[in-house]
């Protein structure tokens, strides 16, 4: 068996795209009701993406490899494969003991001593009245972050509708908000960027506090 050729893979681009995906996962966790706090020793989106890619490249680590039976890898296929690995590692990390000590539900206060809820605890209350109340509170907090941009806030409200995230197509959103699909697409990009910034700034702030 010959070793696959990696000539069509731009590893810098793979890494950058994995960081974006890790940021999306962190933002999604915030949207379901958890606020992240990454303390020293915790993993930021960059750390997680880098660890995933290094695992793939380290010949001593055989847990993440490109099967020789597969076609020669490209940037896109390696990103698609490693996104799955990163997702799995992301959830393992969130369930780990280390993460339990570094993550709190703290969407509504800056109280450093507040006792938090882990992803496991959140799952326990998921789909219960208590969980629903917590989720509503979190949605309110997220909406508050869009106070200065009401045109985005309307879309966020509909996107985080209890019927499920992204329950509406862009066309439906355009009809509901009396605007064009192009506008909706543009505003969705701004929302995504805003959520990622929000997660990144909270993480940095918390790390600086400690």
């Amino acid at each position, binding site marked *: 068996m010959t070793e696959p050729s990696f000539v069509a893979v731009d590893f810098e681009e793979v890494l950058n795209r994995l960081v974006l995906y890790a940021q999306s996962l962190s933002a999604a966790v915030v949207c*379901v009701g958890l606020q992240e706090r990454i303390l020293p020793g915790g993993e930021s989106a960059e750390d997680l993406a880098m660890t995933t890619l290094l695992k793939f*490249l380290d*010949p001593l680590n055989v847990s993440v490899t490109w099967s020789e039976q597969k076609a020669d890898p490209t940037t896109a296929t390696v990103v698609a494969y490693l996104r799955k690995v990163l997702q799995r590692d992301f959830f393992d990390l969130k369930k780990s003991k280390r993460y339990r000590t570094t993550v709190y539900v703290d969407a509504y206060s800056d109280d450093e001593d507040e006792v938090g809820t882990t992803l496991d605890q959140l799952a326990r209350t998921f789909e219960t009245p208590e969980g629903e109340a917590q989720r509503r509170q979190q949605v309110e907090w997220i909406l508050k972050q869009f106070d200065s941009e009401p045109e985005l806030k309307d879309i966020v409200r509909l996107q985080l509708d209890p019927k499920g995230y992204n329950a509406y197509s862009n066309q439906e959103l355009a009809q509901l908000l009396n605007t064009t699909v192009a506008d909706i697409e543009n505003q*969705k990009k701004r929302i995504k960027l805003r959520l990622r910034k929000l997660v990144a700034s909270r993480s940095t702030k918390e790390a600086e506090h400690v």
Partner: protein
Amino acid sequence: MSKKKTDRLFDDICNMAKHMAESDEVLTAEEVRKELRETGVDPDDLKSRFHESVKHLAERERLANRAVPLSLKRAVDSTRPVGQLPSDPVAATTFAERWLEKFRSTFALPTNLESARAYRALDDISEPDQKGLDELEAELKAKVKKENEHQT
């Protein structure tokens, strides 16, 4: 705790993340770098840290008299700082081509490009755009300040 509930929660998170990441797939490499910068990640610093890590892995393999896999070689070569050309001629050519490609992609114009006047001086700009411009200005100033601090 029921495994089903955890799975459903994880599915919800994954679906949200996938929807958020959908529009990332059509971004060019340069647009991805721009997106990272906007969220406070310095892609040059990230690349440099990654390069050091893969170089370290390759050195470890060489010291242990083991062959360095193609993927690792490629990762080292494709993330070298601009001033360091690989010694292998084929890798050097690929490296130079990639470097030139970045210049070309940076200047790729969008298909729906339209001309527009800059109204900032006339104070006729929407509040979100004004805020966006102010943020960009602050980021630029902070970056320049940081670079100056490094040099002194």
